[in-house]
């Protein structure tokens, strides 16, 4: 599939589509545990987390990163992502509402392919970054 974006038309500072994840809830973590096979109990077992001194279960970092990856697949198309690197800065809790967004920081060529590079982040309802990352997607 051709990329949804044209290399020559993309400018540094362009924004990717924004994805809003409203009302994060425990079933999101359970569903993701089942889908991914990540059964670390910190994400669904309230008894376990309380015993570990944590107030409540929280999201798998990779669940949040998966939500964030939609900015890239909505932007360039599924199958067009070449690099996606994320750093987990802060936990995501039940009740949070997340804004996933990204912007272009550069353009380059690698292995004969034209790439758009940029930064992405997930911001919670308090304005705090929970995940920060960088990306490269293929452009037509």
């Amino acid at each position: 599939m051709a990329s949804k974006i044209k290399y020559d038309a993309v400018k540094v500072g362009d924004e990717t589509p924004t994805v809003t994840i409203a009302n994060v809830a425990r079933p999101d973590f359970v569903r993701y545990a089942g889908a991914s096979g990540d059964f670390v109990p910190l994400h669904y077992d309230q008894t376990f987390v309380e015993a570990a001194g944590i107030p409540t279960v929280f999201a798998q970092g990779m669940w949040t990163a998966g939500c964030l990856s939609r900015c890239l697949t909505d932007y360039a198309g599924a199958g067009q992502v070449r690099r996606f690197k994320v750093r987990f800065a802060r936990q995501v809790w039940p009740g949070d509402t997340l804004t996933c967004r990204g912007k272009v920081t550069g353009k380059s060529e690698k292995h004969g392919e034209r790439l758009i590079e940029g930064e992405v982040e997930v911001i919670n309802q308090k304005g705090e970054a929970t995940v920060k990352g960088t990306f490269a997607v293929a452009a037509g």
Partner: protein
Amino acid sequence: MAIDKSIIGQTGKPFTVPIEWSKVREFARAIRDPNPLYFDPELAKKECGGIPVPPTFLQVAAFWMGEDSMPTANFDIRRILHGEQDFEFLKPIFVGDVLTGTSRIADVYEKAGGRGGKMTFMVTEIEYKNQKGETVAFARGTLVETAQAVSS
């Protein structure tokens, strides 16, 4: 406790990852992604040449990794955090592919932390090859063991 640097370079037993449509759909639903390319094989075939996978889908490898495929430090599960994750894609991955992953401990190190005290980091790199023997992706993950349970 001193960290054990001797585990750097340890490689796990290669494991097989069949890329199955049911898991791809389930994963897309779990990350609340309604993209029809994951749900409509006809559309996906026309637009992409096959059903693509979400960028973070290779996380499902955990399903197919036995313990002998996962070289690891003895971290305390109550105190671990996923610090970073890095995916690099070299070739397309489609439903129907059968990947082989090999996990390697790329680095282990310690850092003085903030609220969690001393922290130990382990970087694992998994190389994925497809059924043609082509390297399609690298997944590099950093796990952190904190000195005490962290809550924000």
